[in-house]
């Protein structure tokens, strides 16, 4: 805390000295920001779960005060159930629904009790509701959906009355044909919740990434899939959410970054901007059987979080917070629910989440506006940049000077029309490349910026400033006139 104050004081002194040496006559006045009505959300997918969650897994009880304190300390504001409420065996659909809901109620209450202590909001995964439109071959009509939803959501349901209850997990990565049914599911959910006085309870729907195609989208194009969602479901839920896991394991180079990452984020950001929806997405925090790689350092977390924030994301889900593996086994999440231990990635996530919370009031007062980039080598196109559909040709407040690595720069505006920018070292952090970037600002004497959670005010030299960005680093920048 003291060191942070010292830095701010030094930055202010530096700005003052600069004004005395002739670059400006007035002291730099950094803007201030009101407390945001809602924080920047970090959601823990597969939050610490109940003992022996499946009846066979023999995991320890992680639904404890200690584990939820650690969740909150790591900057997580929401938790999304994966394991709780696992249904026991059932012979009929009706029995399955009944057992699933009973299990979900029981487990959810244990989690909600802990979540409430630390102000964490919780999405219940009630297996009678999650995947409703595809899990039962004999449940296919709106009337049947409503019957099941009403059997689950009623005044006597204890979890919906918890202060930490935020909503229910509805469907993950649906195919195209399921979207129409999900629309029905969400409409009914919203209506029933409104009747129960729980308007605003969220039904969590998360779409596939653009690297799913063919049968996964029922042979529709990705744009058709996303368009359908934004025309029919986004108005009901108020957000656009998708998951995209960018880092793949490469047998030769060690790591490979998917090329459509920015395309996918840009597509959702544009749709959210047009419709006034909140942008939500996921980050990869571990490798798995699909070819994604394990994290190599804090840069991996920063890279994904700052890249998503560069397009205005306000809710970022970690996939996954907990898992069965420890570091020695590979494919390890932040914590191991089998024995309740934590992997080193927990500490990295904690650091990055909290550095974002440190400037969330500033960040959340702006909205995403556009995207620019610069390739470090003009002869080699970064394919993530090349796949952007609608990049800005130029910006009247800023232009690129030299960059030592491929660099992403996105622009924001607040309600008053003021500008802000997010600058990201857009290289795979696995290769540990720092990026030295010079930007030239117009109509600005200085910059307010947030560097790894620290607020800095710096004067500009002829409008220019040179940044050094560590692997994965993003810098939120607000020009000062």
């Amino acid at each position, binding site marked *: 805390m003291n060191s942070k104050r010292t830095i701010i004081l030094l930055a202010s002194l530096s700005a003052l000295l600069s004004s005395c040496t002739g670059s400006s006559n007035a002291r730099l006045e950094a803007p201030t920001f009101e407390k945001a009505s809602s924080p920047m959300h970090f959601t823990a997918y597969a939050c610490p779960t109940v003992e022996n969650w499946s009846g066979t897994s023999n995991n320890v009880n992680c639904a404890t005060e200690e584990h939820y304190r650690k969740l909150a300390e790591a900057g997580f504001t929401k938790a999304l159930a994966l394991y709780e409420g696992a249904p026991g065996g059932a012979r009929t659909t009706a029995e399955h629904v009944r057992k699933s809901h009973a299990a979900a109620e029981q487990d959810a209450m244990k989690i909600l009790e802990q979540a409430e202590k630390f102000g964490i909001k919780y999405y219940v995964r009630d297996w009678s509701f999650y995947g409703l439109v595809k899990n039962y071959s004999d449940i296919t009509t709106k009337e049947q959906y409503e019957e099941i939803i009403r059997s689950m959501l009623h005044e006597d349901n204890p979890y919906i009355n918890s202060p930490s209850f935020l909503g229910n997990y509805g469907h993950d990565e649906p195919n195209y044909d399921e979207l129409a049914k999900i629309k029905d599911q969400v409409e009914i959910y919203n209506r029933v919740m409104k009747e129960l006085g729980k308007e605003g309870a969220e039904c969590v729907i998360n779409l596939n990434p653009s690297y799913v195609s063919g049968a996964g989208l029922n042979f529709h194009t*990705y744009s058709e899939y996303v368009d359908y969602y934004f025309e029919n479901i986004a108005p009901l839920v108020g957000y656009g959410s998708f998951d995209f896991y960018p880092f793949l394991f*490469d047998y030769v180079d060690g790591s490979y970054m998917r090329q459509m990452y920015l395309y996918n984020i840009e597509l959702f950001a544009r749709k959210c901007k047009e419709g006034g929806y909140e942008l939500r997405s996921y980050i990869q925090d571990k490798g798995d059987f699909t070819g994604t790689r394990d994290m190599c350092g804090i840069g991996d977390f920063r890279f994904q979080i700052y890249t998503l924030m560069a397009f205005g994301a306000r809710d970022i889900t970690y996939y996954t917070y907990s898992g069965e593996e420890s570091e020695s086994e590979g494919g390890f999440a932040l914590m191991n629910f089998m024995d309740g231990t934590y992997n080193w990635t927990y500490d990295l996530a904690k650091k990055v989440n909290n550095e974002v919370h440190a400037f969330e009031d500033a960040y959340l007062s702006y909205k995403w506006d556009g995207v620019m980039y610069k390739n470090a080598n003009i002869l080699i196109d970064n394919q993530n940049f090349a796949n952007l559909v609608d990049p800005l040709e130029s910006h009247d407040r800023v232009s690129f000077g030299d960059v030592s690595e491929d660099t992403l*720069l996105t622009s924001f505006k607040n309600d008053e029309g003021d500008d802000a920018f997010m600058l990201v070292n857009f290289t795979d952090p696995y290769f540990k490349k720092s990026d030295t970037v010079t930007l030239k600002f117009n109509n600005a004497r200085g910059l307010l910026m947030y560097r790894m959670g620290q607020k800095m005010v710096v004067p500009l030299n002829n409008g220019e400033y040179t940044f050094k960005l560590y692997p994965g680093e993003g810098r939120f920048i607000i020009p000062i006139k």
Partner: protein
Amino acid sequence: MKNVKGILLMTALLSSVAALSACGSKEEEVQEGKTLLNFEYLQAGFGDAPYQALAEAFMAEHDDVLVKLRPNKDINTTTASRLETKNNMSDIYIVRDVLEIQRWAAKGWVHDLKDDVYSAKIDGEETLMDLMDEDALEYSKVNDHFYSVPEYYNIDGFVYDAALWEKNGWEVPTTTKELEELCLKIKSDSTVAPIVYCGGPNSADGYLYFATDGWMTAFEGRTNLKRFYAFESPDVFKPENSRGKWHGLTNLKTFFYGDYVMARSQDKDFMTAQKDIIDGKAAMMLNGSWFINENKRMLDVNPKANMKMFKVPEVSDSNNVKLRAEGYATVTGKELICADVGASYFIPEYAPHRDLAVEFLKFINRRSSSVLYTLNSNAPRPLDYNIDPTSEAYKDMTDFGKSVLDIVRNNELFLAFSKSPLMLEGHVGLYAKGRRESSIYQKMTPDEVLEDEYNYVLNNWDSWTKA
């Protein structure tokens, strides 16, 4: 040194800097005095060599063209969105899944090559239809249209180090009986593991299907397989009609899940397993014609290794008699081997330089270009051209490449594909429930697998055919 990348980069540096905008926006793909043709392909086992060679040869004839190579590890998941948005499109692509190309064609994203390429004179008076073999032509045809051109036939088999084998007196087996005797000999002669495979994650399922499909194909013969791939009745999955699969799965169990395989093969990634072969720790590994391109760096530091390939040995009994299914038949009388189309070329309907891409594709399909391709990939194309490894054209080819061409010349190739809606819609394939090699690993017997397959098909056949 054929440093095409270097040539392209220097050319681009000298000619295009002025055309590049300062920041942020799309860079103009304009090269002074030259038309830029973007050629995109999967960055995988073959490396860049065959595509560099084709690009160089084309540019030698077209000094106003700059062919820019765009190797892409992610091509299977990036292409659809780029075709749809018409953004950052290449002029010509190679992708693996021909059904994807056909789906994209249905959306109007792919150029019909029937008139421009298939019916055009490619080599003298001969058209591509004249040059292409019958199966490949049928494979590429969609309702009298052609949206793709097969790049190569995937020839696979057991890769081995001939120098190691010669030193130990090990001989190439031609039957499963001989293969088993060889495995026993290798075990008694040395500390070398007879067989290694890559059963780890993201390693093509150990390439085990090269063996199971090879054994099935050799046993069944062309006529039986054609009948199977017509999928006219669920009976084609009956266990008694699936003896080729049974032999494949039985031999799989013997050779890959028994005493002949290197320890921990099930956990090995493909690079580790390939290193075991090159380092002489294992004697054989299932692999494809890309092997030496993919492992160039490892082979460069192991110059004594002399890699070659032999085809999967024929199914035989304990008396070393080759076994054949009832109704077994081939066209040429030669033994039958699998030859899948590894990947296919296509040209986007809205390619920035579509006409030039057509010219490049016609060039690629000339006989001389096919020789050039094979020299650099060790893979045969499904066209009529010289594949005699003893000919002057291949005098500089590696022993590995020549062994692959020997397999092609000495056997009859069978291209497994189907036009049945059941296969196009993804209901059935060689196995209805997906590859079944792992079922054997998980201790199911071949009989149980075949029974399971048949019951599954029988239970779903009506719904599949009604739909």
